[in-house]
């Protein structure tokens, strides 16, 4: 899960990474008051989790007090990739000479953290070509030994960074790594890290993604999940321990495992349809995760039919059947269900479902998807 810039900067500040003075506001009047406290010029930054907020007008420089409220209101009205702006970070504006990129990310193929340093910071550096063309350097970090200063120095000697900045680079990189480790981040990045006229490094932006698999040990982040970003449904699904993938069609799908999710999606698209949602209840799912997932789909009025594609290994098919029965028992839940249920205890599971009129059972993914897509086309 992504943290907001203001959350990430708060972690930076605690760790001792220099950041400009800043405060958060949730309305334009607040923005003006805070801006006066901080002192003009200030930068207003929309706190949304999408990339490209700068291009969309979500980052604005304010020179004078009289502009503050109006520009704040403009930002609050923005909708960037379906997200609305709930809060604005007001930050002391900085003049700087040069900008860098410094980041630590989890390389899943290597199975290690990687430190990345680039002499091209700023908004464009994340575009693939410019990133690759810029002078940059990477280094794999041994998770047991951690990051050491000499490793940062070795990256710096490859580039053109002024040696008078090396100690600051080293300190900031080590602190960034501490943040990455102690928060189970998958990404901790400063873009850009700027050099002021006093030759001091400051983190102008801050981006931290937390490994969502680790949230059980970082419960405070769970409180800070932004429902406007994840959407209400994704948010609910998370609570039930399942994963909700939203699309734009009319067929709600429940599968167990990412592989089956991909296969089901592939086949729906091949038949020129599109799912409304795919809920992955994962391996080892229980009656309650099945029940909750089915409720979520049944409550959604734009969903006209439900497809359930389960191949139980860890998952006990009897628990899936039990979940279906408990939801369909409620009078208002009469959407047609297309089911493929195979694997552990499938025979007894299917027996218990035999009386269910709204249910059709199929033997393969292909037959299942075809029947569901045909139903939607014909009705």
């Amino acid at each position, binding site marked *: 899960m992504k943290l907001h810039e203001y959350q990430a900067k708060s972690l930076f500040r605690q760790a001792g990474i220099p950041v400009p003075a800043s405060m958060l506001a949730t309305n334009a009047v607040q923005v003006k008051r805070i801006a006066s406290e901080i002192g003009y010029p200030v930068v207003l930054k929309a706190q949304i989790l999408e990339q490209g907020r700068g291009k969309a007008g979500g980052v604005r420089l304010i020179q004078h007090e009289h502009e503050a409220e109006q520009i704040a209101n403009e930002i609050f009205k923005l909708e960037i990739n379906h997200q609305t702006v709930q809060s604005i970070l007001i930050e002391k504006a900085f003049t700087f000479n040069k900008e860098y990129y410094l980041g630590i990310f989890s390389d899943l193929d290597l199975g290690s953290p990687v430190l990345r340093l680039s002499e091209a910071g700023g908004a464009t550096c994340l575009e693939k070509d410019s990133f690759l063309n810029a002078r940059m350097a990477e280094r794999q970090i041994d998770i047991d030994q951690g990051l050491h200063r000499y490793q940062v120095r070795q990256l710096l000697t490859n580039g053109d960074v002024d040696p008078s900045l090396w100690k600051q680079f080293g300190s900031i990189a080590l602190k960034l790594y501490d943040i990455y480790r102690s928060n189970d981040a998958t990404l901790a990045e400063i873009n850009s890290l700027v050099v002021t006229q006093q030759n001091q490094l400051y983190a102008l932006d801050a981006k931290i993604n937390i490994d969502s698999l680790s949230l059980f040990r970082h419960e405070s982040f769970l409180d800070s999940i932004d429902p406007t970003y994840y959407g209400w449904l994704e948010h609910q699904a998370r609570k039930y321990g399942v994963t909700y*993938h939203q699309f734009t069609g009319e067929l709600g799908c429940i*599968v167990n495992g990412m592989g089956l999710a991909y296969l089901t999606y592939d086949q729906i698209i091949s038949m020129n349809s599109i799912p409304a949602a795919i809920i992955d209840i994962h391996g080892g799912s229980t009656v309650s995760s099945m029940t909750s997932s089915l409720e979520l789909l049944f409550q959604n009025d734009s969903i006209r039919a439900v497809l359930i594609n389960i191949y139980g290994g860890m998952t006990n098919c009897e628990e899936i059947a039990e979940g279906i029965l408990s939801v369909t028992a409620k009078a208002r839940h009469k959407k047609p269900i297309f089911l493929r249920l195979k694997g552990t205890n499938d025979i007894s599971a299917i027996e218990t479902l035999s009386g269910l009129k709204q249910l059709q059972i199929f033997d393969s993914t292909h037959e299942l998807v075809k029947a569901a897509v045909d139903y939607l086309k014909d009705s």
Partner: protein
Amino acid sequence: MSILIDAKSRIMVQGITGRRGRFHSERMLNNNSPLVGGTSPGKGGDWAFNGRIPVFDTVKDCVDATNADVSVLFVPPHATVDCILEAIEAGIKTIISVTGSVPVQDMMQVKSALRKSDSVLIGPNSPGILVPEIANAGIFPDHIVGAGDVALVSRSGTLSYEVLDILNEAGIGVSVAIGIGDDPIIGMDFKFFLELLESDPHTEQIVLVGGPGGESELVAANYIMESITKPVVAYVVGENLKASIMGSVFSRNSNFFLNSVERKTNAFIEAGALLAKNIEDIPCLLRR
């Protein structure tokens, strides 16, 4: 007979008294897998399944008493790193983590420990290893497929069942079926298993089932080109996913999705593997 597990293997279960552990251990007993013991901290000295299987506090105790050399983990995600490290230290040769959704940095520590050991880790988020007529070390559905000379290596667990089902329908048996695990970071990758299968006398053909994300399939394709002489049928799910969809909808890690399914299928074709466009095509691509 097969790689990693054979008639002499002795399987233990970590977390044998938990809900999942008990359920699948009992299945293993019923399908005659060589289950010899299990652990449940604090319950050492008990016997499970009507006195048939001894329970120990630690993996070390279990190994000392039963000579177990394969361990299957049914423990919660937060305990997985601890249990894998315990199994490594106790000298377990083949560790199978059925548990998935293990935190990324935990797995980084596990990878580091694996590099310093002789243990092999299958998973996390793996259905295990199925060797028909010998052992179902994990959670493969019973009777899903018979014995034969085709080996299956799959990233996804549920897709491996799907493929075994299709093979079984076509009357094809397997020497071994392995789910390598579908977590962000896993122990052993495709290449590791291809190397073992190439020299496995019981395997004549290999089916490889990949998916989007990561570069394990690309490394495997390269290895097939260079070192694998046995016929390989490759299938990569997710052809209709675009990178943009994967990055936002099926989001795990944006870098992880730079290698598209198309790049992977092309790599397998270049490597001389037979590419299954649809999952149902796999049987007819196998040499009969």
